[in-house]
C-alpha cells in the first residue's frame, strides 16, 4: 500500500467538514431516537377535561378549594364539586354518574361490590359535638351522648349539670357520613331516635344549633364556627394528639372513591393534587388534619382505641336489665 495514499486518505477523512457533518448527523440521529423513545412526561398544560365530584359535605370545602387551585394550575380542566352526602357520593361514583365520590365512611364491599372501586384517603376529619352558646356544659361522656341521642333518657341540660333547658338534639339524615360515623364510633352502632330534627347539610346544622336554645348536634370540624360551643367527649377534645393517642375516636378518614382511573388522566392528577402540600396546607387551614400529620404511635396497638365498649356494656346492662 502506498504510504502517500494512506496518509492522504486518512487526512482527507479526518480533516474534511463532511466527516464531522456525518459524525454530527450520526449523533443527532441517536439523540433524536432517544428523545422519541422517551415517553412524554405529562406537562402541566396538557391536561384538559371535566371532573365531577359529589358526596360528603364535610369534605366539600376542601375539595372546592382544591378544585379552584387545580383549575388555576390547569385552565383546561373544569371541576364541578357538589355535596349530597357520603352515601350519595358512593352511589353516584359506582353508578358512573360522577368521577369522584367523596365519603366520610368506608364503602361496604357488599353494597358496592365493584372491584375497581378505589379508596383514596385524602385527609382526616375530626368531628365534634356542638351545643348552642347558651349551654355551659363543656364535656359529656359517651354514655351521656348515647342517652341523649339513642335512648332519649336525658332530655334536659339540668340532668347534665347545666341550666334547666330542654335538650334539642339535631341530627343529620341517613345519607350523611357524619351521622354514620357518629353512630359507629360514638353511639356504638345504636340507632338515633327517630323523632330528632334532621338537617341536610353541615352548614345548615351549625346554624340551626346556633339558633336553637339548648340544641346539641355533631359536625365536622371544617364547618365549625364561633356561634356554637364544642364539647369534649370523655374529657378529650378533638385534637390531633388525642386522635393519635387513641383517646378521641369521633373522627374519620375522608375518602375519595373512584372507579378505574387511568394514569395521567385529569382525575388521577386531581387525586394526586389532593395530596400535594398546598392542598394539605389548605386542609389544615380548614380545620382538617393533613393526611400525613396523623402519626399513630403504635399502629399495632388495639387497646385504648375504643373507649366505648366498657361504658356501653354498663349502659346496656343498666338500660336493658
Amino acid at each position, binding site marked *: 500500500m502506498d504510504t502517500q495514499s494512506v496518509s492522504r486518505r486518512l487526512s482527507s477523512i479526518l480533516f474534511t467538514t463532511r466527516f464531522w457533518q456525518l459524525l454530527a448527523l450520526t449523533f443527532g440521529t441517536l439523540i433524536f431516537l432517544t428523545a422519541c423513545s422517551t415517553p412524554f412526561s405529562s406537562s402541566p398544560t396538557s391536561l384538559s377535561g371535566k371532573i365531577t365530584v359529589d358526596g360528603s359535605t364535610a369534605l366539600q370545602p376542601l375539595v372546592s378549594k382544591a378544585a379552584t387551585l387545580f383549575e388555576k394550575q390547569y385552565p383546561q380542566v373544569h371541576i364541578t364539586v357538589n355535596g349530597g352526602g357520603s352515601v350519595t357520593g358512593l352511589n353516584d361514583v359506582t353508578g358512573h354518574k360522577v368521577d369522584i365520590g367523596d365519603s366520610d365512611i368506608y364503602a361496604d364491599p357488599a353494597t358496592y361490590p365493584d372491584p375497581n372501586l378505589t379508596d383514596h384517603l385524602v385527609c382526616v376529619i375530626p368531628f365534634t359535638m356542638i351545643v348552642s352558646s347558651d349551654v355551659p356544659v363543656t364535656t359529656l361522656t359517651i354514655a351521656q351522648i348515647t342517652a341523649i341521642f339513642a335512648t332519649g333518657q336525658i332530655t334536659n341540660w339540668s340532668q347534665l349539670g347545666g341550666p334547666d333547658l330542654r335538650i334539642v338534639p339535631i341530627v343529620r339524615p341517613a345519607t350523611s357520613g357524619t351521622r354514620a360515623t357518629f353512630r359507629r364510633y360514638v353511639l356504638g352502632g345504636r340507632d338515633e331516635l327517630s323523632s330528632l330534627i334532621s338537617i341536610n347539610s353541615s352548614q345548615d346544622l351549625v346554624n340551626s344549633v346556633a339558633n336553637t336554645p339548648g340544641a346539641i348536634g355533631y359536625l365536622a370540624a371544617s364547618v365549625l364556627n364561633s356561634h356554637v360551643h364544642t364539647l369534649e367527649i370523655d374529657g378529650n377534645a378533638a385534637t390531633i394528639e388525642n386522635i393519635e393517642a387513641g383517646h378521641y375516636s369521633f373522627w374519620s*378518614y375522608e375518602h375519595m372513591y373512584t372507579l378505574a382511573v387511568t394514569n395521567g388522566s385529569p382525575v388521577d392528577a386531581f387525586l394526586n393534587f389532593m395530596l400535594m402540600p398546598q392542598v394539605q396546607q389548605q386542609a389544615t387551614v380548614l380545620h382538617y388534619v393533613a393526611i*400525613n400529620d396523623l402519626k399513630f404511635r403504635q399502629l399495632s396497638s388495639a387497646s385504648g382505641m375504643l373507649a*366505648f365498649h366498657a361504658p356501653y356494656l354498663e349502659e346496656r346492662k343498666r338500660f336493658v336489665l
Partner: protein
Amino acid sequence: MKVSPQYSLQTGDLGTSAQNRDDFSQPSLTLKRATRRAGGRNVFLDLSIGWRLALGFMIAALVAALASGVVGLQRSQSLSKQTDFYQTLLQLNTSLTTGHSFLELMGSKLQQTLLDASVANPSRETLANDAGAITNLTTLYTQTLNTYAQNDLLNQHSDQLALLQEANQDDLAAQQLTLVSSTQRTWQVYEAAQQQILTYISTGDLQDANLLLQDQGQPTNDDAQSALQSLIQLNARLASAVDAATSVEVQNQLLTTLVATICAFLAIALVGWFISDTLVRRLRQLHHVTRAVEEGRIDERVLVSGRDEIADVAVAVNSMLDTITGLLGETRNQRDALAGAAEHLFSDMRIVNAGDLRISAPVSNDPIGMLANAFNFTVGRFRRFILRTQTTIEQLDVVSRQGTERSNAFIALVRTQLHDVPSARAHGAPVLAFGRAQPPSGPLRAGIRKPGSQPLQHEDFSALSKQVQQTQDVLLHTTREDLQKRLSTTRETVEEASLSIGRLSELISTRSGTYAGNVTERMTQAQIQELVNLENLLRKLFREVQQAQLNVNSNFTQIDAAFTRLSRALTDLPSSAPTAEQAEGLSYLSDPQFQEFARQAGGFAVEMNTLSRRLAAIIHEMRTGITPFRLDGATSLNDPSRPTGSLGNNGPSQAASPSGNLMFS
C-alpha cells in the same frame, strides 16, 4: 515510493546533459551520513506496529466491553430490583387477600356462633369450637396486619422507596401508611365489637349480642374489609408505579447506553487516532524524504524514532541513501578519471594534429582507452603510409638524381663523342652500371647487344634513332600499364582506409550512447575532426604521390628507353671504334645521319634533364608536404592488425605546419 531512474546505479551514462551534472555535483559538497535515532521520545514507538495495533484493538475492545458492561450491569441491577419488588408485592397481595378472607370468615363465624347459641339447647362444645375458631382467626389476622405494619412498609425498604422515587411516586409510601392506619383502626373497632358480641353470647345475652352484631359488628366488619381492600388495591398502584419506574430506568439505561456509546466511540477514535498518528506522521516524513530525494536533494535523511517497522524502514532508507551517495561519489571519481584520460588523448591528438606522429596514447580498459587504441592504430597506419610515401620519394629522388646525372653524363658523352670519341668511351661504364641498375633495361641491353655485334653503318644512325623512338613508345605504354597497376593498388589501400574510417565513425556513433561517450563526447568529436584532417592530408598526399609516380614513370620510361638506345649506340660505337676511329674516325661525325642522331640525342638529353628537374621539383614539393611529420621515436603499435580506426570523411584541410622539424632531408 518511487526512485527516479536517473539515479539508478545500473546506468553508466553519467552526464547525459550538462544540467544533470551540475545537479549532483552541487550536493556532493554537503553529503553526510545522517542516521539519527531519537528513540525514547514515545514509548509506544518502541513497540512493533503489530503489537501496537493489538494493544490498540485491546484497548478499544476494553472500552467497548466496559461501556456495554456498565449498561448491562445497570440493566441487570434494575431488573433484579424490579423483580424483587414484584415478588414482594405478590407476597403482600397473597397475605392481604388471605387476611381479607380471615375477616369474612370471622364475620360469618360470628353469625354462626350466634345461631348456634340461639338453638334450644346449645352445645357448649360447638360454642367452644366456634369461639376457638374466631379467636384463632383474630390472632391470625392481627398477626397478618402486624407483620405488614412491621415488615412490609415501603418506608422500611429503601430500595423499593428508591424505585418509587425514580417513578416520582414516593408519596405512595405515605398513602400506604395511611391505609394501614385505616385498616388498623377499622380492625380494632371490629375486634372490640366482636369481643363484645362473644362476651354477650358467652353470658347468654343473645339479644344484646344479636343487636350489637347487627348494629356494630357487621358494619365494622365491612369497614375493616373495605379498608383492607384499599390496602390490597394499593398493591396494584405500586405495581404500576414500578412499571413507571421501569420505563424511567429504561430511559436512563438508554441514556447510559448513549453516553457509553459516545464515550466508547471517542475513546476508540482517540486510540485509533493515536495509533495512526504514530504511523502516519512518520510515514509522511518518510514520503517527504523520498520525494526530496526524487527532486535531487539526496542529502535529506529520515529522522528515525522508535524501534518499530517504520523505524527499520527509515534506517534502511537512510543507509540506502548513504550507499547511493557513496556510489555517486565513486562514479564521479571514475568520470573524472575518464575525463582525464580523454583530456590526455585529446592533447595527444593535438600533438598528432601538429604533425608529431610518434604519439602512442596510453591504452586502458575503458572506452577512452579503446578510443585511444583506435587512435593509435590510425596514427600508426598513417605513419606507415607516410613512411612508404617517404620511401617512394627517396626512390624517386634517387631516380631523378640518376636521371639528371645520366642526362648530364649523356650530354657530356655526346659532346665527347662529337669531339673526342675515346674520351667518350670512358663513360660507358657508368652507362652500363646504370643499365645494370635498371632491371628492365637489362634484357633490353642484352637484346640490343646481340644485334649490336654487327658493324654499324652511318646510315644505321637514322635507323637507330628510329628504333630509339619506337622503343620509347613501347616502353611508355608498358610502364603506363605498370603505373596503372600501382595506381590501382594505391587506390585499394585508400579504399580500405576509407572503409576503416567508416567503421570508426560508426564505432564512435554507437559508442556515443555509453557512459564514456557521455563524458568525452566533445573530445571524441574533436578527435574525429582531427582524424578527418589527417585523412584529408593523406588523400592529398596520395594524389601528389600518384601524380609524381605517373610523371616519374613516364619520365623513367623515356629515360630508360633513351638510355637503352643510347647504350646500344654507345656499346656499338666502342666495339667498332678501333676500326672506325682510324678509318673513318671523323667521317661519321660529319655524316648528316649522325648529325641527325646527335641532334636527337641532345634534344632527348635536354628533355630528360627537364624531366629530371621537374621530378626533383615534385619530390621537393612532396618532401615539404611530409616534413611536418615526425616519424621516429615511438614506433610500436599495439595491434596493427586490428581492423579498427580510420578517418572521417571531410573537414577543413590541414595546413602543414611550416615549423615542423625536418627529420629527414
